[in-house]
């Protein structure tokens, strides 16, 4: 097994009486892009904060580069780049001051790379942070996070505030460049198309739990969306093996299901129907199906 850059096992965390993380396990290896997806409050940011040592694990284990980020913040944070809207940059600083200040903490600072990114983003180094728009702040924060070429880049909702052009052309490029360089990127997002575009691995979080985790292509290949037609008229969604979500009405239904198509086809035939068409499910369809399923399970419990 490849050595893990990030190793989280059975991590639980509660705020007051609300469980934000519930037995989460997560592993990341070098040179890969990991996308964390989930609705608001799913626990993505809480997990990332544990990786940075901003939150202390009450149950479970968190290791980054084999180190505990709370007990050894210098060892971990000197090798990690972090960008988040919550990481409010000092408003009184100019961009140049922010970069110099960050540079002082990181001997691996690549000045030419920083200048190149400044030019790419079209940022004026003399401008103060407080004078920047939300998107420009995110760009300045991104430069400060990547210019010392960290071994692990953690991006918490990096697209927040960025327009579509910046998101696609710049963020994607930076993230891919980091990963191609043999380094690791973990980013959270609720934009599923973004995760699908940028990630090698995807982890779906829901209500503090990891619902689904794996290589993106494997995850997508494991779920299909099929349109099925029955002879009989159904008022309620028909019960089908491996079905996660069923939509439609009457005789025609659209089903997101896991497992093999043959097994599903057999189940449909047994109910007097046929599979009209089938394709790989999108990440969004998988996400909605899985999230809905866990909600039903929670309600049933």
């Amino acid at each position, binding site marked *: 097994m490849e050595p893990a850059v990030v190793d989280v096992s059975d991590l639980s965390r509660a705020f007051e009486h609300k469980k934000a993380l519930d037995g989460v396990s997560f592993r990341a290896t070098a040179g890969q892009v990991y996308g964390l997806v989930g609705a608001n409050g799913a626990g993505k940011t809480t997990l990332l904060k544990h990786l940075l040592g901003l939150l202390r694990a009450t149950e479970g284990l968190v290791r980054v580069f084999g180190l505990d980020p709370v007990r050894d913040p*210098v060892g971990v*944070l000197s090798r990690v780049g972090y960008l988040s809207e919550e990481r409010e940059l000092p408003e*009184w600083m100019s961009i140049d001051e922010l970069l*110099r200040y960050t540079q002082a903490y990181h001997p691996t600072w690549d000045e030419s790379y920083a200048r190149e990114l400044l030019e790419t983003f079209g940022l004026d180094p003399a401008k103060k942070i*407080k004078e920047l728009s939300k998107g420009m702040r995110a760009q300045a924060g991104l430069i400060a996070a990547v210019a010392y070429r960290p071994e692990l880049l953690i991006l918490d909702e990096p697209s927040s505030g960025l327009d579509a052009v910046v998101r696609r052309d710049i963020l994607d490029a930076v993230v891919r460049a980091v990963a191609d360089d043999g380094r690791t990127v973990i980013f959270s997002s609720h934009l599923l198309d973004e995760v699908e575009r940028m990630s090698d691995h995807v982890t779906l979080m829901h209500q503090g739990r990891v619902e689904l985790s794996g290589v993106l292509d494997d995850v997508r290949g494991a779920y299909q969306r099929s349109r099925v037609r029955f002879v009989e008229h159904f008022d309620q969604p028909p019960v089908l093996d491996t079905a996660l979500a069923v939509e439609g009405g009457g005789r025609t239904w659209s089903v997101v299901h896991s497992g093999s198509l043959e097994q599903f086809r057999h189940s449909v035939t047994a109910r007097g129907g046929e599979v009209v068409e089938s394709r790989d499910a999108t990440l969004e369809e998988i996400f909605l199906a899985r999230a809905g399923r866990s909600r039903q399970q929670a309600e049933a419990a």
Partner: protein
Amino acid sequence: MRSAKPIIAMLWENWRLTRVEAGQRLALGLVLGAGALILSDSGAIIAFVILMLVHSYIWFSIAKLNGGRLADGYKPGFPFYFHFARPVPTAVLVGVAMAYDVISCVALYVLSAALLGFIFGQPFPIFSVVLFLVSYHLAYAWAQWSTRSRVVQWVAAFAFSVPMFFMLKNRVGTPLQVEFSFVENMVMVLISVASIALTVVGVARQRRGDSMAVVVPQKDWSGGYPDWLVALFQFRCPTSSSTRAQVWFELRSSGLPVLVAGFGVALTLFLLCVISTSFGNFRFVSIPIAIIAVLMVLFVLGGNAFGIRRKQGRTYASAFESTLPCGTAKLAGLKVLVRTACVLAALIALGASLWASISLVGDWGQFVMNNNQDAIPLLQKVRQKFADDFGGLTEYAHVALTIVAFIAVASVVSWQAAREALRARYPRLLLVVQWLPTVWGLASITLALAHRNGVVPMFLVRGFFTATFWMSWAAMAIAAIYLLWSGLEQRVVTLVYAGGALAVSVAFGAAWLAGMPATSIVGILWPVWLILMLGLLAPWSLGRARHT
């Protein structure tokens, strides 16, 4: 009935926001007032002034909604700005908040005065000062709420606070009574009505978005120091080492603004004394301002060295600094050291200003205080004694005193920084700890009263004070040992840092012994141990706020 629910909701919000401070102020007024009545011959007037100050001039509860204390990161303007989206007329929004503010503080004053009067048999003016309290609070609310300009806020608050203080001072008679003339009462009624009307107009402007700061949102990072103050010193961040860069950060973000503010206060004080030569009325504010200035530099400018932030009721450590690859002990040490150096420099400037100012009081002619004595010879005597005592010291003693002063200021800065960090993590526990001195004060006063009435013998009173002294000693010793163990175990305290904290404590003890006499070994060990505990508490508390 349609508008009753929002009003009840607003009153509830007010209550939630102010209840702790209301309790603290009630206890503070009772403890300090009772202390004055027990200890001083003119205790009644001192107690009355204390009650008036506690329940009017230093009442900031609702300001918490705007982000904290007056000089530290607050957002100017109407504190209930989040009510603007509610379907309630502006007059109601403002009226409810003003009414709550006025009624709560008057009720607390009346309760305190009645209690002290009942316990000590000393009647306090109640009905005659109610209108004063009402008009002062309404005018204060007008100055603070109707504008988003800090400058206007400060100037306006000063402009009516000082004349009202003099009006009150001139109407206090002996034995204690306060009698305002009909004209003065009418003026206070007019001030009240005008304040309400002007506040409604000002808040309505903010609600419509006409006010300045609505267009330019105030986003504080630097602990609330105005942008122009932070931008006053421009020098490049060194990249050669993280330590130098962090010192640069501390100096730019808060250290130098503190220094400039301290120098500004010192200069203002000196100018006030110069003006007082020609305008006698200013003399009465010069001395209170001098006392307040020292406290302000130490406790306001020296506060929150860790840059703990407050936003919409949430207290938290900055994620930007928390994610720096810097050890907690180093970060805490640098922050405390830089802030201490700047506060000490500001205090030295203030001391120099006081020194120069007192040399001017000879030109004042006479300065008659309440007890009908000329205060000028007393001030000059104090200055001369200070000159004789300090001038007569050896060079070693001067160095020793400097070390003692630096470490003492560092300890005050450390405690305040740690307190803010602990507030982010353990707000309820901190509240309990902060109440302990007040509870101790109440217990002491009760015992003293009981002893005076012959209920409790002297040995019990002595026993109480001895017991609390040793209990505080034991608590400090246990706390220091726990902080050392816990800090080392969690790696927020390094061995080097712990050694440094121990060395500083020992240096304090040695410097104290070199410069000043010690009453006993326990007398010197107590502050030495306290400094050690505060030294260990600083990184521990920052660690708790950094890794929640």
